Every structure is written in C-alpha cells, then in structure tokens.
C-alpha cells in the first residue's frame, strides 16, 4: 500500500506538469488546428526565467527575500516570459501563414522550436542549471499522507496545477472571452461573422497556454531540479501525447491525458521496469487512438459530405 501510494504521488506530480503543458497544445489546436511544436521550448524558457529570478535574489542558499516571495516571483517571471514568447510566435511565425496550406504553419512551428533551442544554447550555454530546491524548502518539510511523507514542493506543484486547471475551466466556461475561445474553437469563420475578434481570441489563447507552460517549467525546476536548453523536447512530446490521449482540442481531455501519462510512467516504472516506460506510454497512445481516434474526451470531427 505504501509503495502504491508513493507511486501515485510520483505520478500525480509528473502528471500535473504534463497536464499544464498539454493544455497549451490543446487550446492552440482548438482555435487554430495547429500543432504548436515550439510549445516545449516556451516551457523551457519559463524554467530559465524562474531560475533567473532565483539567481538574482541571491540563489537558493542566500536568499535576500522570504522563500514564498521568491517562488511567487519565479512563477510570475516565468508566466510573463513564456507568454511574451508565445504571443511573439503567434504574431510572427504563425499568423502570416494562417491562410496558407495546413503544412506551412506546422513547418514554421518546427523551425520556431529549433530557433528557440539554439537561442537558449547561446543565452544560457549548454550546461544544465539546477534550482537546488532542497535548499529553498527542506526535504524534511511536507505533509503526511498515510504511511508516506510528501515533500512540500510536491504539494506545491500538485496544488498549484489543480488550482490553475480549475481557474482555467471556470474562466473558459463562465467569461465572455472564454465563450469566444470556445466559439472560435467550434467554428472560426462563424465566430468571426458573429462579431468575435478572432485575432484577439487567438492571441489570448497563446497567452494563457504559454503562461501555463511557464508555470510548468518552474514546477519542473523546483521539484526535479535540472533545467537545460533541450528540456522542452521530451517534455513537449509527452505533453503532446497527453493532449492527444485526452482528445486534442479538449481542455478537460488535456488535464485527464496529462494525469494518465504521469500515472502510466510512475506505475510502469514501479511495477514493471523503468526500461519500458516510454514503450508503455506510447503504447497507451496507440491503444487509445485505435479505440477512440478522437481521444478519450475529444469530439469526433464532423465533415460535411
């Protein structure tokens, strides 16, 4: 039981990060039908923005302000940086190609991904950096969940992700902008004819999705420690898988998919072998797509015949 509980906490932590990242993929796909392959790099820049704040404020061993202030500022900096990059990508890499063929923005997204990776290499060098979170929040701090103790940083990550996902769901369902996003996602042309400012909706979608990715980047830095310029590739791939498993374009689907992938990784490692982790995760993707091509919570695309 203790082992199962420990793996559940491990999976929940990782799944929370994947879910936040998957939301960005899913939201952008919803409004633009675009796979934003640069989303992993947006997340990577968020992680480095958080690291920058941590460094400027004295580093984990010599903070000049209280820890909670530092953590809040790290999240804010990551959200601002990632949002700025996301919106810039939309404006210069995707918008000019919006009326082009469907493959053009996809290629542009891949190019943007490499561009951001190379930029990070030049800016931050190839050396990995570490948040050294155990010096910020000691490993002894945390809460007791049955027989296991959960480190406070993991609690922070899980709670923050849950709160953000609830807020996003409420915002999308209960605000005018949220309704506009849903309208554009449902039918972009019809929404435009009904007076929805499609450009503005798309910018807001990139802004929100990228901000969530930035939060995910800081979370990874805090809980796992190491950040480096290539970190967005694998995380992005897993999050994209999560979005597809959940049903790309579906916000609850992205959350569900992220958590499922996180649990799949943890339980595979715990009960089978770490060697087969990726095999199981991507096997899960294939199985879901075979059984439900539109994902677990995705809606089948209607085609006029």
């Amino acid at each position, binding site marked *: 039981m203790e*082992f199962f509980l*420990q*793996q559940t906490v*491990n*999976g929940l*932590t*990782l799944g929370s990060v994947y879910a936040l990242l998957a939301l960005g993929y899913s939201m952008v796909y919803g409004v633009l039908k675009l796979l934003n392959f640069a989303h992993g790099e947006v997340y990577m820049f968020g992680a480095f923005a958080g690291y920058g704040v941590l460094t400027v404020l004295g580093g984990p061993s010599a903070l000049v302000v209280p820890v909670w202030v530092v953590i809040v500022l790290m999240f804010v900096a990551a959200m601002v940086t990632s949002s700025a990059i996301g919106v810039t990508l939309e404006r210069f890499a995707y918008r000019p190609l919006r009326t082009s063929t469907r493959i053009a923005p996809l290629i542009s997204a891949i190019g943007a991904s490499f561009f951001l990776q190379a930029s990070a*290499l030049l800016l931050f*060098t*190839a*050396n*990995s950096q*570490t948040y050294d979170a*155990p010096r910020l929040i000691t*490993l002894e701090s945390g809460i007791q969940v049955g027989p296991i*103790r959960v*480190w406070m940083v993991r609690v922070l990550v899980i709670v923050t992700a849950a709160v953000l996902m609830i807020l996003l769901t409420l915002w999308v369902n209960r605000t005018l902008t949220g309704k506009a996003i849903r309208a554009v996602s449902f039918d972009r042309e019809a929404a435009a004819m009904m007076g929805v400012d499609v450009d503005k909706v798309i910018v807001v979608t990139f802004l929100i999705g990228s901000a969530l990715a930035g939060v995910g980047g800081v979370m*990874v830095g805090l*809980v*796992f*420690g*190491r950040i*480096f310029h*290539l*970190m967005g*590739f*694998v995380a992005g791939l897993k999050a994209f898988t999560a979005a597809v498993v959940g049903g790309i374009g579906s916000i609850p689907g992205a959350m569900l998919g992220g958590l499922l992938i996180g649990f799949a*990784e*943890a*339980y*595979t*490692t*715990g009960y089978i*072998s*770490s*060697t087969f*982790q*990726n095999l199981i995760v991507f096997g899960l993707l294939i199985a879901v797509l075979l059984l439900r091509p539109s994902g677990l919570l995705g809606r089948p695309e209607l085609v006029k015949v």
Partner: protein
Amino acid sequence: MRSRSIWLVVALSMVVAACSPAAVDTTTTAQPAATTTAGPAESTTTGAEPMVCEATIGFLGPITGPVAFIGEVQLNWFNYALDTFNAEMGYQIDFVEGDTQFDTAQAATLAAQFLDSDVVAAVGPAGSDQVDAAGVVFEAGDPNFTFISPSSTRSGITAKFTGMFRTVPTDDDQGPTTADFLIAQGAQKVFLVDDQSSYSTGLAASVVENLEAGNVEVITESVTQDITDFSALVSTIPDDTDFVYLPWQVAANGQIFANQMAEQGKTATIFGSDGMDSGDFTAAGSYIAAFAPDIAGVPGSVSLLEGFLAEYPDTNTFGPPVFAAARVILDAIGRVCASGQVPDRANVQAEVRNTDLADSILGSPISFTSDGDLAEGRFFIFQIEEDGTKTLVG
C-alpha cells in the same frame, strides 16, 4: 523579381558561408613568428641551421551540446598545453578545433575535414561513440593519422584503429576496480541504473559481471539521459540495498537522483562512474570513480594546475588527461623536428608510439601498449565530503 532572386542567392550564400566553417575553427596561436626558432633542433642537430618547427594539430571535443561542461574544460587544457609547449620550446605549433557536439555524425564529418587539412595528429574525440565514428574515417582515409582520446574508456576500441591512443584507462580497469571496491565495502545488494548509452551499458555489464562473481545481488534498471524525474524509480530501491551504482554521463542527473533518494528516505550510498565526476554531483558520502587523480595532490603537477587556473576559471578530472594527450603529441613533434625531419602524420605517429614518459601531469608514467592503450592504466576512487571536496579512498 530579379532583384528578389539576387537577394535570395545572397542570403543563401551567407547561410552557407556561415555554416561551413563553423564546425572547424582554425586558430593560430599568438606566438610571434620571430620566436619560432627551434631550441631542441640546435642541440641535437650539430651544425644545422636553426630550424623552424611548424605543424598543425587538432582538437576534437564536445564544445557545445549535452556535455559541453566536459568539452569546455578539455579545450582549455588543450590550449594550455599548446601555449606552454610553444613558450617552452619556441615552436610555432598551430591548432584547429572541431566541435563534435557529442554527436557521432558530427565527429565523422570533422574527422574527414581533419584528413583533408594539414593537421598531423589530434586530441580527441571525448566519448567512445564519437571515437568509433571518427576512427572509421581516420582508418579508411589515413591510418597514419594519430588521435589520442583523453576520455574514451570503452574496452577494445583502440585495437580497431591503427592511429588511436588514449591517456585514460579502460572500462576493463574501471569495472573490476569498482566491483572490488564495493565488495570490499561489504556490499550485499547493489541497485544499478544505466542511462542507455553505449558507455553506460558497457560499463554496467562489466560491473555486474564482477559483482555477481563476488556473490553480490545486483538489481538492474535503465533510464534515458534526458529525463529528470527518477522518483518512481527511486521508490523501487529495496530498503536493504547497500549501494546504488550509476554509470552515467550527466552528473546533474546523479544529483537529482540523490535528492530524490533523500526525499524518500532511501539510505543506500551512491557510487558514480567517471562520467559523474564533475561539480554537478556533490551528494555527501557518495563515491565516484575517476580516470585521473586529483592533480592538486600530485606534487609535480601543482604548478601546472596553478598556471592553468590563473588563465582559466575552472577545471575537473576531464582536463589533465587532455594536457597529457596534447603533450604526447607535441613531444612527438618535437622529437621529429629535433631529428631534422619535417613533421608529418607517419613520423609523428611513430614517435607517439615510442612515448615513454617516466612521469606525467597525471602522476603516473605514460607509455602505450601495441594497441594504443595506457600500459599502466588505473582508476581512482574518491569519496565526496560534506563541503563538496573529494578525498581519495581507493
């Protein structure tokens, strides 16, 4: 329309121009030409005119990429060796540097470029996979081309290539040394995690073989180098495990693994391979293997280390074997010049093969077996202290 075409051609030309030379950066050392008269030539070639000893040597290393922390230190030690040698001897040895990015295809491309240039010998590549890729090109193009790896430890690789040498011991030394040490520490159960690279799996196999021969129970697992969450794996470490052995190349991942072990209250001691020997891994009480001693403890090397640190910011154990490799090549070139010949690939390789140094920066002799391995190679084992310093324990 025509104007746009011209701009397109210009832009493409600029891209090609920018990309082509980027991989190989030709740099001439700052030694003034007036000081290139060769001292040793005067002393050994009676009555000969003062001669200029000129040659170009190469450096192949991961200057960028996932293990740039290795390449940066290696390049600095290479430059240091060259500068000190030129200053001592009054020679004009130039160098060409190539960034393998720790990538096999890039290593092969650079090897071909070195063969097409006037480079007579090279230090590098760093990793065994890159050595394998470059070695095939060197062997096919010119077996007389000498390349000395300062960090490739895969066993048997030197036998494949005529021109390959190395200044570090092999996994055949590291595997048994590690296993013997763990057994001597009373290990009954070892949890081993490889990182799926050929370096890691090869070394893991050697350690497992030797541990099992000593009746130690070994649990093997595997992860990729690009993940940073090991918590699910850490949960599976049995409580009665004595040691966790990590034959990894990304030391920062080892530190994360240690943190996640501490988070879950796992008390096994980590033992890292030579790839973990960097400042990124500082888990107190852990052990690491190193293919070179801490040269700060080698009496004859202290002044070299001080000289290096006066010019460069930092070092680690990947550095001194580069200095040793560069000096082997430079000394060989010096002997060629001293005999009145012009250095070329064949005579430099012959002199490298004749290397017989009673002492070196590594605090040990350097001579090579017929394959090109160190004749007297050994690994060193350090324990990491609370303050991050290392103590030699084996």
